[in-house]
C-alpha cells in the first residue's frame, strides 16, 4: 500500500478561492456540468465512495434513491454538525479546503437535480461558519454558485445554517427537523429522506468529507478513486487521533492502513512513559478495542467490522494504562444521557440508568450485580429506538464491560482506579 500518496482532501494553500482555483479547482464542476446528471452519479457509484460521517453508506447509491420523476424541489444538505466525541476532521477540512466542499455540493446538487443546498454546521463552530460564508460568497461572485452556473443553465443556491448545540442533530433526520426550525428529534424511517426529506421533499444528506471527495472523483474518474484503499473500502479517509500520542491531529490516509503503522508513523507513537491500554477506533459510540485487538487491525470498514467495532467517523481515541475504564465510561454515559432527545423510552431511561449505575460504581457504592444490570440495560436498548443514539450508548457500555470486566469488578469490590487516574477524579 502507498502511504505517502498525494492528499486528495487536505492540501496546502487552497484556503482561498484564488489558491483553490490555481490548483485546478472548479474544473471538475465544469466537467460535471457537461455530463448528464445520471452520468455524474454513475461516476460516484463507480468510485465506491462511502459516507464519511460514520455510517459508511455508498454515496452514489444514496444519490440514486432520489425519485427520478418526483415533481417539486429537491434538496442537498451537508452535515457539518461534527460532534461525535473524538471527531475533529471536518473542522480541519472546513478550515483548510472549504471550496472542495462547495464544489462537491454544486456537483452533487447537479447530479440529484437540487437547486438549493444547505450546510448545517454546529453552532459552536462560529469562526468556521464565518469562513464558510465568505467562501460561499467568493464562489458565488465567480459564478460557481447561483444562477446559470458556468453558462450551463443549472441553478444552485447554497446557504450556511448554524446549529444551536445538540449532538443529536448529527443524526440526519434530527438535522432536517432542526433545519426546519424544530427541536432536533429524529424522524421514523421510512419514509427515507431521499423520498421525503427537507420540507417534505426528496433530500440527500452527506457528510463534509464525503462531499469534499467528489470533485477529485469527477476530475480523475471513479476507477481511479476505487483503486485507492482496500477493496470495498475505497479512497482516502481523514483519521483524527486524540489521546496521549506525540502527534495528535488529522491525517489523510488510504483506507486499510494498519493501525500499528498509523500509530507509529503518523501519530509518533505514545508519549514517553505511556503504555497502550485500549483504542476507540471510530468515535465514542464505536465498540472499544483492547490494545492487542487494535494492534492487529487495519483501519477500514471491513477490517474494523470483523474486529467487532466500526470505522465510524475515523476518530481514533487512544487510551493508555493510566486511565480508568470505569471513569471513562462514566464520562461517556453522562454525555449520552445529556444528549438523548427524550423521544424513545429505552434511550431516555436507559442512558440515565446507565449513568446512575456508573456513578455508583465510581463512588464505591456499586455491587457485582450492577455489572450485569449495566450490561442488560445496554442490551435492551440496542435496536429498539427511532435513531441510533441508544445504540451509540449501548455499544461502548457492552464492550467496556465485556473487555475490561476486571476493572469494573474491582470498583464493585471497593477498589478503585489505577494510581495515575486517581488524581483526575
Amino acid at each position, binding site marked *: 500500500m502507498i502511504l505517502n500518496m498525494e492528499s486528495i482532501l487536505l492540501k496546502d494553500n487552497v484556503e482561498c478561492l484564488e489558491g483553490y482555483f490555481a490548483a485546478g479547482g472548479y474544473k471538475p464542476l465544469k466537467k460535471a456540468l457537461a455530463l448528464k446528471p445520471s452520468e455524474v452519479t454513475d461516476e460516484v457509484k463507480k468510485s465506491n465512495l462511502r459516507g464519511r460521517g460514520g455510517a459508511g453508506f455508498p454515496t452514489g447509491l444514496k444519490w440514486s434513491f432520489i425519485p427520478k420523476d418526483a415533481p417539486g424541489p429537491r434538496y442537498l444538505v451537508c452535515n457539518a454538525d461534527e460532534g461525535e466525541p473524538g471527531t475533529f476532521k471536518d*473542522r480541519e477540512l472546513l478550515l483548510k479546503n472549504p471550496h472542495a466542499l462547495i464544489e462537491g455540493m454544486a456537483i452533487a446538487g447537479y447530479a440529484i437535480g437540487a437547486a438549493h443546498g444547505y450546510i448545517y454546521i454546529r453552532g459552536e463552530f462560529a469562526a468556521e461558519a464565518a469562513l464558510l460564508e465568505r467562501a460561499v460568497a467568493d464562489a458565488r461572485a465567480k459564478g460557481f454558485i447561483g444562477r446559470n452556473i458556468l453558462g450551463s443553465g443549472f441553478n444552485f443556491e447554497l446557504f450556511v445554517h448554524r446549529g*444551536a448545540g445538540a449532538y443529536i442533530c448529527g443524526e440526519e433526520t434530527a438535522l432536517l427537523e432542526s433545519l426546519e426550525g424544530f427541536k432536533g428529534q429524529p424522524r421514523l424511517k421510512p419514509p427515507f429522506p431521499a423520498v421525503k426529506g427537507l*420540507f417534505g421533499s426528496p433530500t440527500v444528506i452527506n457528510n463534509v468529507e464525503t462531499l469534499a471527495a467528489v470533485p477529485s472523483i469527477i476530475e480523475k474518474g471513479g476507477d481511479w478513486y476505487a483503486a485507492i484503499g482496500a477493496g470495498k473500502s475505497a479512497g482516502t479517509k481523514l483519521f483524527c487521533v486524540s489521546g496521549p500520542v506525540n502527534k495528535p491531529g488529522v491525517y489523510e490516509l488510504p483506507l486499510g492502513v494498519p493501525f500499528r503503522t498509523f500509530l507509529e508513523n503518523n501519530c509518533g507513537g505514545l508519549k514517553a512513559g505511556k503504555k497502550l491500554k485500549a483504542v476507540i477506533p471510530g468515535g*465514542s459510540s464505536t465498540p472499544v478495542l483492547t490494545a492487542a485487538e487494535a494492534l492487529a487491525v487495519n483501519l477500514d470498514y471491513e477490517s474494523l467490522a470483523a474486529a467487532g467495532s466500526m470505522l465510524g467517523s475515523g476518530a481514533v*481515541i487512544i487510551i493508555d494504562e493510566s486511565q480508568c475504564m470505569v471513569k471513562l465510561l462514566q464520562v461517556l454515559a453522562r454525555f449520552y444521557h445529556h444528549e438523548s432527545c427524550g423521544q424513545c423510552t429505552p434511550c431516555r431511561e436507559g442512558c440515565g440508568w446507565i449513568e446512575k449505575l456508573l456513578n455508583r460504581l465510581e463512588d464505591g457504592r456499586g455491587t457485582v450485580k450492577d455489572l450485569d444490570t449495566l450490561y442488560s440495560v445496554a442490551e435492551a436498548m440496542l435496536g429498539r429506538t427511532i435513531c441510533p443514539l441508544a445504540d451509540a450508548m449501548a455499544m461502548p457500555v457492552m464492550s467496556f464491560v465485556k473487555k475490561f470486566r476486571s476493572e469494573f469488578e474491582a470498583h464493585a469490590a471497593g477498589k478503585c482506579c489505577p494510581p495515575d487516574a486517581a488524581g*483526575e477524579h
Partner: protein
Amino acid sequence: MPFKLTEEFKAKAAHICARYPRKDAALIPLLQELQGQAGFVAEEAMDALAQYLELPYARVKGVVTFYTMFNRAPLGKYHLQVCRNISCHMAGAPALLGRLKEKLGIAEGETTKDGLFTLSTVECLGACGTAPVLQANEDYFENLTPEKLDALIDDLKHGKHPLKR
C-alpha cells in the same frame, strides 16, 4: 417595558427568512440574532418572535430549551465553557475545571459577582486533537495548560483579549 422587535432586526429577519421556503425554518437563526444582540433570549423576546413568525409560543420556547447554546438569562461578560468529554477528560480537563472554580470562586453554572465570568461545562467541542479545550464566548482556546489558563483569565480581566459576544 414590553419587548419590541426593532426595524433593523425585522429587515435582517426578512433577509434570513428568504433562505428557506417556509419562514418558520428561520426560527433558530433568528433566535441566534436576538441572543447576539442581548446576550440571552428573554421570555418577552420569545413571545415577540413567535408573533413575528406566526408560531405558537410553545414552539419557540420548546426550541430555546432544547438547544444548549440558547441562554434564558444574562450571563457574565465572558462565558467560559470547559469541555468535559473523553479526550479533554484524559488531557486534564477535570483539573482545569477545578482550577477555574478555585480561581473565580464560583461553581459550574454560576457567574462571578463582578459579572465578568460565567463558568459552564460543555460536551465535545470537536477539537479533540488539541485537548484540553475551552470556549470563551465564541472563541476556542486549545492545548490548555494551567499556565495558559491563568494567562487567559488575567488577559480577560484586564480587557487584553477582546472577545466577540
